[in-house]
């Protein structure tokens, strides 16, 4: 039962990811990404990481992707938006870069299979355990991330400011 559910959800995630890459229409691509994020959230939920699952839906699907779709709707109104890409040659890099990433993923997955002792400490997916780790063991990177986000926000404000 749980296995069957996993394969159904995983298939949805893969199809949605393919849809994101293959659709020419930017809005369709963005909506496929929303479906993909939702499917990944379902996988988190089935693994017992409830907080992660719903935080992913709220933050990525519910907020960030809404802004993406909003921006695409404002900037690219029609279906005939995509002219010839000026940096078409760059696409040749996609294949080796993708292959490299795939190899890396294989190594990571094989390493993780080795045993529970490797990698991050294993805790439950509850809010308390995540909060405990974030505010004790990983406090410094956590605070550093917030500074990074602040810097990005200030940069965006600077870019958006009208030239006087």
């Amino acid at each position, binding site marked *: 039962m749980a296995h069957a559910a996993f394969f159904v959800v995983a298939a949805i995630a893969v199809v949605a990811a393919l849809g994101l890459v293959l659709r020419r229409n930017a*809005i*369709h691509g963005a*909506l496929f990404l*929303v479906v993909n994020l939702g499917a990944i959230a379902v996988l988190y939920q089935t693994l017992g990481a*409830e*907080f992660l699952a*719903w*935080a992913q*839906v*709220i933050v990525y*699907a*519910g*907020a960030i992707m*809404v*802004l993406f*779709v*909003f921006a695409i*709707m*404002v900037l690219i*109104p029609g279906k005939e938006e995509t002219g010839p890409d000026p940096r078409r040659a760059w696409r040749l890099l996609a294949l080796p870069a993708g292959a490299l990433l795939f190899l890396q993923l294989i190594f990571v997955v094989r390493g993780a299979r080795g045993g529970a002792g490797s990698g991050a400490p294993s805790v439950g997916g*509850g*809010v308390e355990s995540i909060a405990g780790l974030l505010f004790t063991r990983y406090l410094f990177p956590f605070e550093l991330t917030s500074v990074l986000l602040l810097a990005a926000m200030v940069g965006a404000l600077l870019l958006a400011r009208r030239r006087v």
Partner: protein
Amino acid sequence: MSAADLGIAFGRVAFVMLFVLNLGGLLTWVERKQSAIMQDRIGANRASIFGFRLLGLFHPLADAIKMLTKEDFRPARADPFLFGLAPFVSVFCALVAFASIPFGDVLRVAGREIPLQAVTLNVGILYVFAMLSLGVYGVMMAGWSSANNFALLGGQRAAALMISAEIAIGASIMGVVMIYGSLNMMDIVRAQGRLFWGWLPAWGIVTQPLAFVLFLTAGIAATKRIPFDTPEGESEIIGYFIEYSGMKFGMFAMADFLETVVIAGMTTALFLGGWQVPYLVPDGFRFPWGGAVALPHLLVTLLQVGAFVVKVCAMIFVMMLIRWTLPRFRYDQAMRLGWLGLFPLSILNIVVTGIGLLLWGGRA
């Protein structure tokens, strides 16, 4: 899983779904009748079956028949799939959002403990919030796929409004989460059963009065209804569902009513004590002035479910009062209220709540 478990799960889901759907359908009637009373009119009373008018209660039925039998029109240049999907996304998100709002305490029948809540989730409050924030996709898809610039503008207004409202909703419920120390809606409601100084129920509206006002305002904005109906503006400006007709249009209207029910349910669960009745403990009433009335378990549970339903209806009534009292905010006014009013105040509320918890220690 035995057949009995399956039946119980089915019953829990069916109760919530029928409650939300029927209440949402009834709201079309409430809206007409309440506005008529407020404006000193008689209101909808023409629909009749064999001469029975029943205070106009047949109007929702007549509406449904009219919507279902109208032509389902689609513009030639519309995106066929997204155009068809959009109203379903809207209704779906509004309908399932209620699932983790508890409508009663645990019911004990024949040795079983049934939590009166469609889905038991440890992070239920995040679930409701996530479903509310996904609802905006239906509106945006409708606006974009209609191949109509007015609809596109309406969809964008809706997206901007709902983002500003949802940020304020998320930030204002944080204070409640901090006070009651849980993301589980059932735990939050249970924690509101305690009494301050032996007589004042520790409801969210007592411990978090500012968050209550902020949440209600942002919640009304999230339902896209007057005074925040800039996305639709059905009377003079043009909204995201301009190209929709028949039942698909009806579904967008229904989604707004369902969201009203969800926001009322959330407000009840977080700020008005959910299913709590003041001074009602599991074995009966225990009054602060010393009296006590013993009640059987089933009656206590019924009282709690009844209290929840009454509170939700009262909240809907208040939201309808606001809807028929205030004129529409201009788009920039709504944005200003969301980003410069509600959001900073909710952050301030979090800070003040944190300081308060530090000073007076522990949780309420």
